[in-house]
């Protein structure tokens, strides 16, 4: 039998690069939830907010130049987890198999639908693709909300050799005794995680309607604002419930050992500010200030992500439930120092460049508001 990473390495003090990479992964997820958040929101709203084909096209074209780039944040976050914390990536992606399949299915459906919807005239064709956009935009936030709420609670892991549904022989030949998720699909759902899922869906819909209000003119903008008034308050209430529940019940709980009190305070602060941001967005939207409303939900999504990552130190959202076995944490899951240093240099150079040309695309090239009169036949 080979030496086992998880068993011989004790929970050590993380290196500066391990901390940097946990922060960078958090930044990438925050970027994803911010950018793809309004993208998902607009997508979910397409069949409901757009009363005519032109109005739906206004909504889709507000995202047109950006949806693909927004999605890359997820790919980068996934790639960064793979590169910097391979054991995290391996345990998470194999452990939450069916939820991730739903995410992939959603992303496939909506991506194709954005590109192909207007390339044919038929009413049936367009209706089918509108619903593909809506469903494809609904599934991922629901899964991510439920998933991140599960990580707050600490998803249980066991060593392969103690995994009930794995033939012991399969672990004999595996290298080391990897930590794996013993759960079955429906065990990820409970009241708390469903609130998380609902929160993500409603927050993104609100974020998306503020984006539409910001990026369009005319009837569609008015309807988006009205919709934002309802969804904003729902998202605000859900966020408040979720933040209090998460911090009160799950921070420093037995299931997630080693969490730092200082980060507990930060989780409270960022969580509370996220709730305030969402409330602010709702208020500003009702005052017809669409720029401020969008900034409000931006703060909401980004700060909520920061709060989540306060929970993920050091256990990365997983918790070992077998006594005496090794833990999954920021040190045991990470890549070698050599790889982390190289990746840090690359990220330090590249992330600012990406942000610069993304900003150029949003704020300079495609800054104008769209309306039905901008839609060619």
């Amino acid at each position: 039998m080979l030496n086992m990473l998880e068993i011989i390495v004790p929970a050590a003090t993380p290196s500066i690069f391990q901390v940097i990479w946990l922060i960078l992964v958090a930044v990438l997820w925050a970027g994803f939830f911010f950018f793809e958040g309004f993208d998902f929101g607009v997508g979910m709203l397409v069949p409901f907010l757009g009363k005519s084909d032109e109005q739906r096209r206004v909504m889709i074209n507000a995202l047109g130049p950006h949806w693909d780039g927004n999605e890359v944040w997820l790919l980068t976050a996934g790639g960064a987890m793979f590169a910097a914390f391979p054991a995290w990536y391996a345990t998470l992606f194999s452990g939450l198999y069916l939820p991730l399949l739903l995410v992939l299915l959603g992303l496939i459906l909506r991506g194709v639908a954005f590109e192909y919807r207007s390339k044919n005239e038929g009413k049936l064709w367009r209706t089918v693709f509108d619903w593909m956009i809506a469903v494809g935009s609904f599934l991922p936030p629901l899964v991510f909300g439920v998933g991140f709420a599960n990580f707050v609670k600490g998803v249980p892991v066991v060593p392969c050799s103690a995994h009930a549904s794995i033939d012991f022989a399969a672990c004999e030949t595996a290298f080391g005794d990897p930590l794996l998720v013993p759960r079955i699909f429906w065990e990820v759902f409970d009241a708390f995680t469903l609130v998380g899922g609902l929160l993500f869906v409603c927050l993104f819909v609100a974020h998306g309607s503020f984006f539409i209000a910001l990026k369009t003119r005319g009837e569609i903008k008015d309807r988006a604002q009205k919709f934002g008034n309802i969804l904003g308050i729902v998202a605000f209430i859900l966020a408040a419930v979720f933040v209090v529940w998460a911090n009160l019940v799950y921070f420093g709980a037995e299931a997630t050992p080693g969490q730092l009190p200082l980060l507990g305070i930060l989780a409270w602060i960022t969580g509370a500010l996220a709730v305030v941001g969402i409330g602010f967005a709702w208020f500003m939207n009702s005052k017809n200030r669409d720029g401020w409303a969008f900034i409000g939900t931006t703060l909401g999504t980004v700060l909520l992500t920061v709060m989540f990552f306060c929970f993920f130190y050091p256990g990365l959202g997983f918790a070992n439930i077998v006594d005496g076995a090794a833990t999954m944490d920021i040190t045991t899951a990470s890549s070698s120092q050599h790889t982390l240093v190289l990746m840090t240099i690359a990220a330090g150079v590249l992330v600012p460049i990406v942000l610069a040309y993304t900003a150029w695309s949003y704020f300079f090239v495609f800054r104008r508001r769209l309306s039905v009169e901008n839609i060619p036949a």
Partner: protein
Amino acid sequence: MFCPMSPDTIARWQFGITTVYHFLFVPLTIALSVLTAGLQTAWVKTGKDAYLRLTKFFGKLFLINFAMGVVTGIVQEFQFGMNWSEYSRFVGDIFGAPLALEALIAFFLESTFLGLWIFGWDRLSKGVHLATIWLGAAGTFISSIFIIAANAWMQNPTGAWYNAEAGRAELTSLTQVILNPVFLTQWPHTIAASFVTAGAFMAAVAFYMLVKKNAEDAPEDDLVAYRKGVKLGAWVLIVAGACTVVSGDFLGKAMVTSQPTKMAAAEGLTAALDDPARVGIQVFPGFEVFPGFLNWLYGTDYIQTVPELEQQWADSGYLQWDRKANVPVAGTQLQQDFADELAKIDGLSPVNAIPDVTIAFWTFRLMIGIGCLAVLGGIFFLFMIRGKRIPSPSPILTAVAIAMPLLPLLANSSGWIFTEMGRQPWIVNGVLPTLQGLSPSVGIFNVAFSLIVYTLVYGLLAVVEVRLLLKYIKKGLPEAETVDVKDEAQPLSFAY
């Protein structure tokens, strides 16, 4: 060990199906983006309408194809963790970085700048707009560099060592990963094949339309533009075809050192040889031509048969061969480090180190044969339109035009099946057996269910995609509109 319904068999099928399917779209994305950028450059330089119309025509087809590449690509990145978690855990220190950098450098670049290109016709000046398509094309190129480097590392794991304490492979030298001889030859080979694919596509589409429009008495301008398309596509196809052969030769020579079993299987050397110096090429098993060709290609010292390699593996646990000392050697640092570990694992040794000879033999021939056929097709197109000629429509010409874009796709798929099946039984050549890379916690239901979902969704999308491609091909060249920066209220020059 083989069981038709085991999770590992289904996971292998899933990887094969999703990867081959993904790679139907990738080569067109890589090379057609460059050709479209070239056409647009020609328009900006010369101001001729024909180039603008061709840019928009092929740009549209490129984008229909691009969308499929994007959505099927997401599955690829997730799949390593979902189905192959122990592979990911074992190699993540080396293999994860190219995937992360691919997303960070290439995917952001191509998605953002193609977005700017699609919607920027009336928002950007001519020069800046031209730059966006070149940057988008650069993104697709950079993407191919990273992913081929990652794949080449699986074929020949350079620049890494085995950290026994951590129980995994770790990076020692990024330079060695990049200077991997398999990567340095596999990447040009893949890029050249991509240009074969895009050249054949462009030539066939333009040829079909040229013949059709000529018979319909279309305006002279249209015919001139289509003729340009045929010529550009066909010449790209022919030149890229030559590059594919040359780079393939170098790749073969790199593989014969690093993966002798793969090449022995590809050449069908299943029995002891009477005279290694006289071995020729087997067209099909037992039918040999060009005696001495393999000697000329690789040198006698490298010609090893499957039985010899099997024996060598059984004796030494090594597959590679030191030509000067005439002894088996351990290969890369990682392979050397790990040889002892492999031997220690109960129930694992002996691994049968030889891939499926039939599959390797035939996919190798299909790749070369169909690829060459595509190049002949390019010459045929040029011949048919030589001088000022335009042939009249006939079912045979239509059949050729339909077959031509498909030939490189078949050749590419065969090439990848050969590359990946020829590496078996390893997921990391000479180090990690494929079976060891599997996710232990993912049950047979999950893998089978996801395979069914992907197959159904991919099948439906293929129908939609082909239908749209045909529709936009038949629509023909768009009009050359003047492109100005417009005011707020005017319609977008392009909209979904």
